[in-house]
């Protein structure tokens, strides 16, 4: 059982905008050192939650803590421990990239190590000439890279990243994942909102799914993946009889022809393998369950 202070903790956290309830009584605990994927459709309340953690928005009810510091009462201490990348980075466009990073570094409670900043900018493929250009000349991908640099440069123990890879090219996505792996190795916690389920599947330890402001699923990624069936396709070398009637309920028949069975199997493949004994199996294709098979269901309606 974990005894450390959660990196992110919310209790009954609620935010109303007039009649709209953007976040409803959110109870969440993200352990330190985890990469937590925060998922949901547009308008589900992901960004609002992150902004509540940063005290940019005042909660209508409930409370939130960052590494043991109340986000409202002790907001300065809480934010001193967090690096933030907004979904839409709002840099002044008449500033250069270097100036923007400089101002944010000077405002940071954490000393920015020059060597780390240089390494970070190299890994994000920033050249000196890029940093000396005005941000108005940057592409949207460059602006996002600058926002990543600003979030990571303080080496904060908690990173709050709002859709960080949106608009990044595949090489930069890889560079970002490598950075994420590095900060995770150093023990930092990452709270990451994303639409990209394959990305979440790849980098997150645990996910939370938000639907219209309510947390409808919170579990480790492996566990969520196991909630989805495996897709099994068996091809026979010659015609065989239909599958036996006595299969357990965890095996669902999708389609059957004399030479091919398509099945959906939850849990163990044992009953299927047993029933194939003596049959002329030519090919067996098992597709691992994917996170999105489960998550998309939760987006639509909680099962």
């Amino acid at each position, binding site marked *: 059982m974990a005894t450390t202070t959660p990196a992110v903790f919310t209790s009954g956290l609620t935010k109303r905008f007039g009649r709209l309830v953007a976040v409803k009584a959110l109870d969440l605990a993200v352990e330190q050192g985890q990469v937590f994927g925060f998922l949901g459709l547009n308008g589900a309340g992901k960004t609002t939650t992150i902004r509540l953690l*940063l005290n940019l928005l*005042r909660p209508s009810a409930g409370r939130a803590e960052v590494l043991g510091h109340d986000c409202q009462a002790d907001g300065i201490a809480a934010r001193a421990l967090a690096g*933030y990348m*907004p979904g839409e*980075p709002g840099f*002044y466009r008449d500033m250069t990239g270097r100036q923007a990073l400089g*101002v944010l570094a000077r405002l*940071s409670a954490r000393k920015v190590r020059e060597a780390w900043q240089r390494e970070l900018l190299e890994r994000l493929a920033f050249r000196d000439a890029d940093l000396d250009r005005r941000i108005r000349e940057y592409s949207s991908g460059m602006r996002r890279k600058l926002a990543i640099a600003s979030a990571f440069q303080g080496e904060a123990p908690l990173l709050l990243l709002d859709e960080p890879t949106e608009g990044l090219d595949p090489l930069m996505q890889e560079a970002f994942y490598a950075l994420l792996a590095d900060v995770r190795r150093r023990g930092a916690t990452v709270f990451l909102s994303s639409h990209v389920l394959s990305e979440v599947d790849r980098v997150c330890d645990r996910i939370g799914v938000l639907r219209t402001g309510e947390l409808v699923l919170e579990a480790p990624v492996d566990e969520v993946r196991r909630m989805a069936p495996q897709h099994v396709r068996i091809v026979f070398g010659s015609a065989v009889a239909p599958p036996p009637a006595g299969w357990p309920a965890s095996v669902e028949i999708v389609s059957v022809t004399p030479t091919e069975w398509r099945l959906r199997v939850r849990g163990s493949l044992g009953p299927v393998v047993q029933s194939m004994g003596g049959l002329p199996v030519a090919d067996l294709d098992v597709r691992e369950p994917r996170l999105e098979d489960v998550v998309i269901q939760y987006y639509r309606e909680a099962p």
Partner: protein
Amino acid sequence: MRAAGVLVRHSMGRMKTALAVMAGALALFQVLLAMAAAELQRQGTFEQLASLVPAFVRELFGTALLSMMSFSGIMALGYYHVAIVAVLVGLVVAVATEPAAEVEAGFADLVLAQAVPREAVVARSAVMLALCPALVIAAMSAGTFAGLWLAGPAAGSAPPPRLVWKLAAGLWAVLACWGGVSLVIGTASRRRAVAAGVAGGSAAALMLVDYLSRVWKPIRPIARLSPFHYYNPLDLVMGKPLPPGDLGILLGTAAAAIALAFVVFRRRDI
């Protein structure tokens, strides 16, 4: 305080070109005004102009009108002419609506996601509101002195330096007052255009009310709501002192408004 200092430096860096251009242009205007006043005095035009003013206009505006038609009156024009005052009000509105611009652009998110208290953002704006008009008015005053040195009348008949300081102090106080009010609007708004529209439009309306109240008695009680009511440069030209009561009202309003801006910005959603 450190964060407020960083933000002041940042804002000043962004505004420096606009400030330098404005200060330079207004200083040059002051030099030209002094030269023009000297020329008018040499030609004896002030007396001719005064004799052309119809009696009813004299009655309406009193001796203030005649004081305008003097070397000091023309020299002081830069400190009360509606166009100059409008430009300076525009400057303070631009400075005071910076918090709204930062919220709108998302820069406030980046700043306030750091360990920066919200008060630092308002403190930055308050410092900028004191500093920016002061720098421009200081440049104007330097322009006035330069103009007097270049083309002023003989030492005995030249306007005293104290007049320039009084005009500068009065103008700064009225700008500080409106800057404070604009800051409340700027800290409460999500969009700079809206904040600047409300602050600038209200300033124009209040300036108009003040002008009208000088010729139309029924609106004089309303004119008390206008900060421009408490700045009478022509009285200063006529040698009257800067009224401490008026100065107190302007600076008191500025202080109260800035305090309110702190509260508004602390409580709002960004």
